[in-house]
């Protein structure tokens, strides 16, 4: 029988490989807050299997589950059968978009990036009182969340770069548009070309990204190959920080949340911890960490399309930080900061920040 959809052509064997053991339930953030098997990776694979078997149709009824996945990859990491669930889901979303079944929020994201240069359709980018597009050794590429949602975090990061005398510049950024691949669409090459051009114009040898997703996109996607071919070094802030000489310390109890895009998707687990352990000897891990880390709930377009569940996932994760009585929850992703901070209740005394923000604050206090 001829395969009807690309997900089947590409991933038939993997979908059948799912042995339905259900081990993904232990780590799936959406199952964790809903206890609903159809939202779990196993439930999603079963739906696709039934589509392949011709028992059900790929249609709008499946939007609620196939589009409600943060693509955090915790299931993949814990799958005895080696099923690459996030890639399968991303492909199935593309197939659904092709037949005209897509969550309106995801259609919206694609449309926004055809008209705007940022995912939030905001008019004016913050300039943070700094010159853009100048000649410098480093480009600091903020990312949409840092520019338009977590401007305080970005301001602090820039202050830190200044304190550390880093020769950097901001640029007129466009959304890296990597997220479109997750939500059933494709990278917007116009935006990619624009980014490549503005970055190259600075003469910088290295791009430091504030956002792990931008990092992932620059590093892996074909649309950004010219950057890599020109020999531009690409690092996330966490990697850049690790090699710096930072002498401030704190007695506060600090924990670290692995962003999915940095940890499971890029394998960067130790660099941020090395930095944090240096400044905070009283470091503690949450119940789930490294490859088993729980997702904050914001990825894969879920924050936009299913905000209530997205925030519940953040709350679920935040509870783990509260359980270990951390004073400060550090992470390396503005999107995680944003969602976790949104989930924080007034009575929770924990502080939620990027590592850069925290270091900047400690340095400020020490001065």
């Amino acid at each position, binding site marked *: 029988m001829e395969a009807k959809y690309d997900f089947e052509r590409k991933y038939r*064997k993997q979908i*059948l*490989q799912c*042995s*339905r*053991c*259900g*081990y993904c*339930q*232990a780590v799936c953030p959406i199952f964790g807050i809903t*206890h*609903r*098997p*159809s939202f*779990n990776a*196993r*439930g999603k694979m*079963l*739906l696709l299997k*039934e589509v392949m078997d011709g028992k*059900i149709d790929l249609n709008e*009824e*499946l939007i*609620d*589950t196939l589009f409600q996945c943060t693509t955090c990859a915790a299931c993949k990491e*814990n799958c*005895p*059968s*080696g099923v690459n669930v996030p890639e399968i889901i991303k492909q199935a979303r593309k197939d659904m978009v092709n037949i005209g079944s897509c969550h309106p929020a995801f259609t919206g994201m694609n449309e926004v990036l055809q008209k705007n240069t940022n995912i939030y359709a905001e008019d004016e980018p913050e300039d943070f009182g700094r010159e853009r597009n100048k000649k410098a050794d480093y480009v600091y590429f903020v990312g949409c969340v840092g520019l338009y949602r977590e401007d305080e975090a970005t301001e602090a990061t820039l202050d830190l770069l200044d304190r550390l005398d880093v020769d950097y510049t901001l640029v007129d950024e466009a959304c890296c548009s990597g997220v479109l691949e997750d939500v059933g669409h494709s990278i917007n090459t116009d935006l990619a070309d624009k980014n490549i051009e503005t970055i190259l114009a600075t003469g910088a040898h290295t791009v430091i990204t504030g956002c792990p997703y931008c990092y992932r996109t620059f590093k892996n996607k074909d649309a950004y190959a010219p950057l890599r071919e020109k020999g531009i070094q690409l690092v996330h802030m966490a990697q850049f920080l690790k090699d710096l000489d930072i002498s401030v310390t704190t007695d506060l109890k600090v924990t670290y949340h692995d962003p999915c895009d940095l940890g499971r998707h890029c394998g960067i687990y130790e660099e941020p911890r090395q930095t944090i352990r240096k400044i905070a000897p009283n470091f503690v891990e949450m*119940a789930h960490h490294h490859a088993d880390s729980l997702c904050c709930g914001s990825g894969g377009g879920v924050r936009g399309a299913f905000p209530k569940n997205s925030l519940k996932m953040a709350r679920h994760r935040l509870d783990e930080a509260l359980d270990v009585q951390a004073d400060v929850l550090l992470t390396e992703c503005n999107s995680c900061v944003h969602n976790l901070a949104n989930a924080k209740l007034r009575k929770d005394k924990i502080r939620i920040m990027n590592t850069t923000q925290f270091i900047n604050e400690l340095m400020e206090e020490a001065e």
Partner: protein
Amino acid sequence: MNDDIKKALKEIVGEDNFTDRLIDMVSYSYDASEHSSRPDCAVWAENVEQVSEILKTADKHRIPVIPRGAGTGLSGMVVPVKGGIVLDLNRMNRILKISIEDRLAVVQPGVVYADLDRALAPYGFFFPPDPGSGSVCTLGGNVATNAGGVKGAKYGTTRDYVLGLQVVRADGRIMRTGASTIKCVSGYDLTRLIVGSEGTLGVVTEITLKINPKPTAASTAVATFGNLEDAGRAVTRIMSSGIIPAVMEIMDLPTIQAINQNTDLGLPEVEAMLLVETDGYTQVETDYQLSKVVEVFKENHSLDIKQAASRDEAAVLWKARKSAYAVLARIQTHFVLEDVTVPMGRITDLLRGIGDISKKYDLRIATFGHAGDGNLHPQILYDGYNPDETARMKQAVADLFKLSVELNGTLTGEHGIGIAKASFMSLEHDDVEMETMRAVKRAFDPNNILNPGKMALEAN
């Protein structure tokens, strides 16, 4: 199912806790077995009162109710073969009480095994059965299936720890069985009857578990054997040496070969490998136990013995055994994982017999499992889209059950009957026993609404 009944269910659990949407109906059609069948709807119950009302409604209208935990079972126990209502108990997931002085924990059925383990850890206690799916399976499911695990030989199975239950009967009435005491001989032991009854006698809504202090020391070794007979004899001799290891796992040659083909562990390709772990409270004590085991291995011509000098080294020794299921799950698109169990003295015969079945039906069968309690897991690999291979798989399974019963063993040591093994019940149980089981079922559930179609309770 008519809309009035759906409406009644919504009134009981609330709109948000009812579903008949396609996405959910697909999920609830399956467990971890190869079986599937659609329910009519599903509800998430939040308390015992709701469970009671759901059952009253279902009983009145003669609608099947399938209680469900994590759905990790391997024999189709929660597959709704006759449609009806899936009663999902995952949202009843509170640990109600941990009492170290009384040595017990009281939990709701939706508590995940690993969550109880995490909650007991600060007290230095644990709930020992340790099923392979411990990170996700629910305690309600453990009770319904009498779940076991790698430590069965020393620590027993779920049944050995259930002191009391709250159970909702098929007609919605609520009863308590057992007691909050370690000993209790007051009346029929309904608790033990319910444990392992696969949701056919009642819905468990609260569980009182005996808990154990957790051993803090362990010693681990792996031994290889050039032939199965030596390995089998080593297993039985260990038992007569006076030592009961906490773990004694066996892997056969097809399992070792599959691991070597798919990992870089580079295991020696021998007829059998035994992994042994002794546990206790001091290293001296566990090392002593292990030294006795190692003596037995040597007496029985082990080729090579590796002992772990540290926890890290132990983890390395465990790696092969822990990877077995995952490695085998990736080779073919389909497999069945059986759990035949024989008296320890017959393990060699069982493994030889499995080898014969593998040849006879030209199927790849890899066997590993709990040699310490005679419970082995032959994993039969096949292509479910190939009708001929599927037919051979079915014949192989039938031969396997016959073999196990002939060796004085049982169809299932820990996965349960469900629908997968229902047609083989009479192989193991005589007519009088079957009739007695059916009489018990009728006494508890005269209208046959609780998980119908399972365990051959309806034949005759």
